[in-house]
């Protein structure tokens, strides 16, 4: 019974969220407030990135402190071809996903040999390397970043130069990514990942080569985040190494925790809370970082399940 009520509350919330997201452009169109559309665009892209991080962090227990690298790699895979006048959308997306996957494969193969804090720090180290790597390539703007003049071109399929089209493109991407992640976590593969988080030694002793499964999971997460990066590049029309700063990776972790680890919609809640808080608090006071930081500590101390946990709690209480 308990499970059923929780399920319906969750489904209700999910349906409401996506209905709102679906009709938002009409509202912003009517009120002539394109800024909110931008805000939600950013939110949805970050939600995809956070969801991919949740796959390894929440489900797999791999605390990557360098996930922002894939956002950057994905974005540069849009920016660099665009710089040479290549705006072929499918090609750019393919590049973004492939480059992220290869990067994840190489670094993951090394990182996953370490455990605990060593893992946290080595993932961070690799991202710092990419960060400084892009800083040093002056051709693509170095520290200053690169302006993307033209967004990805998907031919007659959809023209994302238009902000509303871009919005729906991102929304559908979000839905597809969440669905994919949902499927993966429920599959045999997903169970192996979950089991490896819970007790890796036992998983090996019953016959799983956990290292390889975790590595593949790490690569999948990287690919999805690389895709989010490609969207981000298109959305901001601008990329800079700053996107891969260690604080950016920290923010992604924050979104996952704030939303609630290991739950499907958690990262969406987390990204939404993050973007909205940032926007709202910074308009409130110059010292908004203080409130933000205090909130972060509160979440860790008092709300371990994150927003998703609160929803579950409410669902249970109602019954």
């Amino acid at each position, binding site marked *: 019974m308990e499970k059923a009520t929780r399920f319906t509350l969750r489904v209700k919330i999910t349906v409401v969220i996506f209905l709102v997201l679906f009709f938002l*452009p*009409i509202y*912003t*169109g*009517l009120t*002539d*407030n*394109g*800024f*909110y559309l*931008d805000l939600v665009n*950013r939110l949805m892209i970050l939600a995809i990135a956070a969801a991919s991080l949740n796959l390894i962090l929440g489900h797999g227990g791999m605390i990557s402190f360098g996930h922002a690298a894939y956002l950057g790699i994905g974005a540069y895979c849009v920016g660099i071809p665009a710089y040479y006048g290549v705006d072929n959308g499918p090609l750019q997306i393919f590049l973004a996903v492939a480059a992220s996957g290869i990067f994840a494969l190489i670094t993951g193969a090394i990182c996953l040999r370490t455990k605990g804090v060593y893992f946290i720090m080595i993932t961070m180290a690799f991202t710092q390397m990419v960060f400084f790597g892009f*800083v040093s390539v*002056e051709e693509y*703007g*170095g*520290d*200053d*970043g690169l*302006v993307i*003049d033209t967004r990805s071109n998907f031919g007659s399929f*959809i023209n994302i130069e*238009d902000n*509303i*089209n871009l919005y*729906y493109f991102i929304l559908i991407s979000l839905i597809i990514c969440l669905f994919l992640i949902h499927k993966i976590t429920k599959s045999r593969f997903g169970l192996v990942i979950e089991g490896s988080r819970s007790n890796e030694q036992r998983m090996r002793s019953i016959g799983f080569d956990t290292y390889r499964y975790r590595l593949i999971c790490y690569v999948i997460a990287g690919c999805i985040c690389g895709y989010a990066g490609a969207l981000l590049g298109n959305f*901001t*029309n*601008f990329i*800079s190494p*700053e*996107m891969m*700063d260690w*604080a950016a990776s920290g923010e992604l972790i924050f979104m996952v925790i704030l939303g609630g680890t290991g739950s499907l919609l958690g990262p969406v809640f987390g990204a939404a809370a993050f973007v909205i808080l940032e926007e709202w608090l*910074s308009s409130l006071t*110059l010292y908004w*970082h203080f409130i933000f930081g205090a909130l972060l500590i509160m979440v860790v101390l008092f709300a371990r399940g994150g927003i998703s946990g609160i929803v579950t709690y409410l669902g249970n209480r109602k019954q």
Partner: protein
Amino acid sequence: MFRKLMLLATAGMLAIGPAVAADKVKIGFVTTITTPAGVIGKDMVDAVNLAVKDIGGKMGGLEVDLIIEDDGFKPAIGKQKTDKLVKQNDVDFVAGFIWSHVLLASQKSALDAGKFLISSNAGPSQIAGKLCHKNFFSTSWQNDQTPMAMGQLLNQKGVKSLYIMAPNYAAGKDMSAGVERVFKGKIVGKDLTKWGKGAQLDFSAELAKAKASGAEGIFVFYPGKAGGAFIKQYAQAGLQGKIPLYSVFTVDSIALPKLQKAKMNGVMGSMMTQFWAPDLDNAQNKKFVSGFKKAYGRYPSFYAAQSYDTIFLIKSAVEAVNGNLSDVNGMRAAMKKANFPSVRGKFSYGNNHFPIQNFYSREVVSDADGVWTTAVRKVVLENHQDTYAKNCKM
């Protein structure tokens, strides 16, 4: 599906009709308020507020609505804030911008939306050249100009060899390119140091190299707080008196009070070049400097001077069209004339909307009250136009 939704949305917008007639001039001002670089932003915001006060809060009969946004020293945030100003606040002018990379990231958002973009400091070569735009104006300079003046000054002084240090970002590279273009002697060494978030502030290794190079002069560009840090280490390393310091945008009224407090006498008499100085002799500048000192109890920096000019430039545009803000062409034409009292005196705009102006040599001196400031020495470049203007198809 999307098309339909879009149509719906546009229909909605049309139903409401064109935006209600403006009774305010909305000016968005993007600068850095948080992070250590916030000290520059503070100077700019103070100057803009002073300017708005000095014009009685009105231009062309319209009230001035000033919206300040913090870019957090990050290009991405700067762009986001520009988007917000354009889309949410629907400003008429987007101004400010300390940093070249923030301006580069943000310019498309403002210009594509048909807004005027006025840089109160940053002058990256791209925007002076191939990215120039009819709705972009600068109240400062193109990055290369000031160091070019410095190159000229070095030639005049007969300096034979030079060591260059600058941060590794757009403006830093422009600055070093500028001085290299004009300087006739030998560049014996050059260091571009880490900038942005986590900028390098300890220059021990670089200063040791400069010392070992045996250069006759050291040229630096370290804006904001890095400037103070550099000068201190320059003195601590014992270079003062051995390798004279030539700087641009480094020793300013933000760094000087701190240097004075730290008793860094070595900076006295060091040379720099600039388009403006607090003691520049014209009515508008006297009014500005004395007003600023009265209101805030300190000398204004050049950042402040440019920001002050920004408001007067906008005022000249709004007044030319009698407050009819929909007359974009009229306002543009008015701004092109540079017909406003500038703290730098009379100047004109080039085809790329960067000022064609004089550059002076300046020296660090102590004023009548014993406060350290800078004084104009002589004109180094007269009515100088930047070299990128020819790349601008406008």
